[in-house]
């Protein structure tokens, strides 16, 4: 019963992404297989060297690098979205697998959800 949590909203300007991450961590805490898919503006979560101190928020990069430790199976990012936001594989945080947003990807999961 694997779940794909999709994040298509950008970091910091919206809270939905953080709440999506909490959903994935909760699934993992209850031993339910969960993966994250970043797509659209959501791929900006995965850029290296974020520093959100100046806007009164905690940098999300650290939460994400902890994902494998908490049992998240995979951090996936849509290849085309990364390209449109100028994200090369080398500018992404560690542990991200590039995939294509398509029906074949969705078919690998029993359940797909957004946080909002």
């Amino acid at each position: 019963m694997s779940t794909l949590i999709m994040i298509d909203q950008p970091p910091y300007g919206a809270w939905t992404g953080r709440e999506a991450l909490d959903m994935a961590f909760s699934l993992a805490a209850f031993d339910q297989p969960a993966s994250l898919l970043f797509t659209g503006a959501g791929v900006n979560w995965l850029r290296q060297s974020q520093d959100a101190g100046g806007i009164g928020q905690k940098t999300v990069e650290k939460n994400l690098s902890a994902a494998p430790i908490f049992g998240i199976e995979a951090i996936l990012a849509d290849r085309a979205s990364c390209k449109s936001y100028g994200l090369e594989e080398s500018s992404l945080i560690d542990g991200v697998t590039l995939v294509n947003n398509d029906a074949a990807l969705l078919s690998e999961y029993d359940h797909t959800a957004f946080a909002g």
Partner: protein
Amino acid sequence: MTDIQTLHILNKSPEHPRANRCMEMMAAGDGLLLTGSGVLLLATGQLPDASKVFALAPDVDARGLGHIAGNAISVDFTEMVTLTLEAQKVISW
């Protein structure tokens, strides 16, 4: 009612990025159920032809789109419940 692999429930207007994502990730054989602002897709005439398209009647009526349902099948909440159970999977976009 019908044979649907994945039922995609879309409540975003056609220009919302998630509406595009939904179209990209739909497979041939999947169903699309338009609810809320999602029914505005009917006004564009750009319904995906590979899929069965359903639209939630009260949302269609609210937006004055009852006359241009095209090939979309109008459903009420009871039929929506049935659709979600008949499909193998449901994704709420």
